[in-house]
């Protein structure tokens, strides 16, 4: 599936929720299901700065696509990363770099998009895209 298709799928899922509580409960559950990052990658190098909670991200290139794994010590943050990883993982670096992120707004998480918000959604997106840029130069 393309990034856009996955995003539309997520928008569909979120459209079933009536209120913030259902949305958050879903994110919390996504966070619980997030495949954990291998412990060897939970290093200070892989910590994304700008989050009040700790967030670790690891990226690997497989068949010219990037596979992301991640973890956080806060569950809502983890849910947010789970959504990002679902969108970005197993996509080509170019598609990740070009991805439009407006879907965040559409699933009612706009409040997390403020660059000054301590959960660091903006830093997370930036970091994932940085990996994509790094791998893209490597592919060329």
């Amino acid at each position, binding site marked *: 599936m393309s990034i856009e298709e996955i995003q539309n799928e997520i928008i569909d899922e979120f459209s079933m929720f009536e209120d*913030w*509580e259902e949305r*958050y*409960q879903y994110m*919390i559950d996504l966070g619980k299901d997030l495949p954990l990052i291998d412990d060897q990658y939970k290093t200070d190098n892989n910590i994304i700065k700008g989050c*009040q*909670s*700790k967030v670790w991200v690891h990226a690997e290139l497989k068949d010219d696509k990037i596979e992301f794994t991640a973890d956080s*010590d*806060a*569950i*809502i*943050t983890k849910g947010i990363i789970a959504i990002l990883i679902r969108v970005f993982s197993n996509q080509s670096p170019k598609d990740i770099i070009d991805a439009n992120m407006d879907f965040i707004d559409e699933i009612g998480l706009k409040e997390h998009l403020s660059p000054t918000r*301590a*959960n660091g959604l903006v830093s997370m997106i930036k970091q994932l895209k940085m990996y994509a840029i790094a791998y893209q130069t490597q592919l060329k």
Partner: protein
Amino acid sequence: MFNINEIRKDFPILSRTVNGKPLVYFDNAATSQTPQQVIDVIVDYYSNYNANIHRGVHSLSQEATDKYEQARHTIQKHFNAKHAHEIIFTSGTTHGINLVANGFSSILKAGDDILVSALEHHSNIVPWQMLCERTGANLKVIPMNQEGELVIPEFDALLSKNTKLVFVNHVSNALGTINPIEYIIKQAHLVGAAVLIDGAQSTPHIKPDVQALDVDFYVASAHKMCGPTGQGMLYGKESWLKKLPPYQGGGEMIAEVTFEKTTYAELPHKFEAGTPNICGGIAFGAAIDYMNTIGFDTIASYENELLVYATKQLQNIEGLTIYGTSKQKTSVISFNLDGIHPYDVGTILDKLGIAVRTGHHCAQPIMDFYSIPGTVRASFAFYNTKEEIDALITGIKKAKMMLS
């Protein structure tokens, strides 16, 4: 008579909603809310007599200067300082601490000791570390115990003739512990050390008497006392303030300037370079007046009622740990739910319109002591109610259900 409903009417912000819910504001230890009486003073300043002070011959300037100096007297009276010129207007607690730390650069020598408490805010740690780097003095730490209190025998043991300075907060911002500063000041003076008390968290609840305390420096921030942000005060004993060199150079702080030599102005202007936050100073005075109209004894006893009520209910929530269990506390409760990150709890509470602080509260050493990433901190002011605490308890239970 203390009428909470009347008091709440003074604070326009308390009637707003957040995320569709009535605001429950429990982040008072970070910044307090502003009553209409203080807002009016701010509006009045900019509407009627905004002008630069201490230099104009015109009437507006004179009016602004009078009001600004009147505010200094209000603060002097409130803290019972001997002289008005012992009150230096600052931009806040952090500024006051840096001013003193900078001044001591020229006084301290390598091998001198300065003592700081384990309960400090980063504001009261970093400037002293910088001072130690500049002077070669040693920073020694008065340890804390499990209840979040300072271990006084360890303090006694650290004191020596090498001790030149002691820095302790009157009340810990992360835990709410009220420290025994009377004792600390007395003992420090016995070895000839100067004492700076960080009053950022005490001044919203307690009216300190700097002469009775015999403290050398006492600092506070207006924004935690119903006043504006970017405004604070430093009290310093006249003898110390005369001894310390100026912090910043500029207009206002000089007596005479030639390119060969500048002589500094008298106190307090020596430490007040440049155009200050004139409106902020005046509004700070108004905030102190407002709080005194209610009365600090009334404030403290009502807030203690809130603290006891909330503590009891929180203790009934299974898996909830309170950090900071000293008997001497202001209305601050730091806690965590087992296995749940404070950030998650804060996020859910925010969705319910409840404002709390989460994180390390600029007191990382305390969090390290308890081996936790941070806490959720609910801090109450005299305009909060038991009904709001009930809403918090319901919110925490909901957060617990959603998150575990």
